[in-house]
């Protein structure tokens, strides 16, 4: 009997392994995605100057904490093509839904960023210029664009990786904002 169980083990192990692999093929799973260690943590400490030659003020942790209502923090760069794609969506969120949007301009030349904002419009209330990318590390970003939802108490409640373009992505952002507003 023992022997039979022993001989059946390989097949059983293979089935279990197959189960995991099948799970891994789930199309909603992105093998490259990295979960954020920041969610449910307070906004990391940082202070960023404004992007040179723009009128928009810079961004800091203190500023984020003192707003008192949920905000979006969007990490973008002028060299990032998908950022252009989501820019219109962000603008619309600001104009129509009254979302408060903060920006972190990541590893960008200030002049390029200023041109970019000039060309596409500037929906951001504040923009911090993270030209060396250090604050990006503080936020644990793995690429641009990334968008965070911060609640009224300055706690990061949600993170979205990649451009917010699809209706589903927008719904997720809206839901996260609503949840953040409800909590405070």
């Amino acid at each position: 009997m023992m022997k039979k169980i022993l001989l059946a083990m390989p097949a059983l192990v293979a089935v279990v392994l197959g189960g995991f692999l099948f799970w891994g093929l789930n199309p909603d799973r992105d093998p490259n995605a990295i979960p954020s260690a920041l969610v449910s943590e307070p906004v990391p400490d940082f202070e960023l100057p404004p992007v040179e030659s723009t009128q928009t003020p810079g961004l800091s942790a203190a500023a984020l904490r003192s707003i008192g209502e949920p905000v979006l923090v969007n990490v973008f760069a002028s060299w990032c093509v998908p950022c252009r794609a989501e820019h219109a969506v962000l603008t619309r969120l600001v104009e129509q839904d009254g979302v408060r949007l903060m920006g972190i301009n990541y590893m960008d030349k200030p002049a390029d960023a200023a041109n970019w904002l000039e060309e596409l419009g500037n929906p951001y209330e504040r923009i911090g210029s993270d030209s060396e990318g250090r604050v990006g590390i503080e936020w644990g970003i793995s690429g641009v664009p990334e968008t965070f939802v911060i609640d009224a108490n300055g706690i990061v409640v949600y993170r979205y990786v990649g451009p917010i373009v699809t209706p589903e992505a927008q719904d997720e952002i809206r839901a996260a904002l609503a949840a953040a507003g409800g909590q405070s």
Partner: protein
Amino acid sequence: MIWLVLGAMASITVLLFLSGLYRTGEVLNRKDGALVILKDQLSEIDTDQERNLISVTEADAARVEIKRRILAAGRLATRESSRASGRSTIFASAIATPLVAFALYSQIGSPQIESQPLASRASETQEAANLSELTQRLKTRLEADESGGPSDGWVLLGQTYMRMARYDDAADAFERVTVRDNADISTLLLYAEALIAAENGIVTPQAESVIERASEMDPDDPGPIFYRARILEQDGVPDEARTLLIERLKRADRAYPWMELFLSVANRLGEQVGESPVTLADFFPDSRDARSPGAADIEAAQDMSVEERSAFVRSMVDRLAARLLDDQDNLEGWLRLAEAYSVLGDFDAAQNAADNARTLAESLPETDPMRAAATARLDRINK
């Protein structure tokens, strides 16, 4: 020709299959096969012992073991096997094999497409080079023109750039026309399209303002409406974008060629927001022949199978031909028709279209680069 080759392949397969029926000779059964190996192992022990690699006792023990294995192998039952039975099955499978293959091939193969090694397409490569040279000449000419160059010329230049996927240059060319007072909606839309293409499909504020301008000229023109829907989609409100398209479709008094495009975009958007697809019949139950080649068709063509695609190309060409009967002075149209026919292998029709194009081209002034461009294209078709 191709069927001949494929047929030959199939026949050889069948023949090889059948040749098995005439194979003779003894077959090795399990028992004999094993015995040969075991006997060899037995003799190996003798050699090993001779070479003092193993002791006498070890050798003896090993011999006993192998002898026991030989005994066991010798007791193996050998099944009576026959060479005679099962002939008909071999025969049947020989016949079935090519049938299955052809059935499958008819589903996934594309026998109608010739292979086109790059070397045989030298003229095409050459033309691409020519085209870019001609384009450059056209551009220089237009720029040299003190009056700013004819609008038609700039539009042609822009369209050529679009075809060459040089969207920034195309946008520049169209912009020259759009700043003029006589710019029409279609030029504005071309400009917008170039701007959008240059940004990998993103409608920038600049493109948006161009579309706004077109929209002001005629709010009901389907062109601006199409792009406005696109802006809405990009803003993340596909439902509104879809509504905009559907509303315009409802307002139409009869079937138009642009409707296919509207429908396909509306349906794509509908899929996102969970609306069921609509067809032309939902708006005009009695019109069936309102199709026209549009961006949507081309988009749809990407997903088609090869046969579908060539049938599609054919239908598009037929429609173009029909349209040219009403628009006989359209040089570009004739050129495209001639090219299309020659690609499809309908050389007589290609020649006819090319003759029309040549007549039109020759009516242009000698120095007009458009004439040179057209002639170059015609020469290629005639080859």
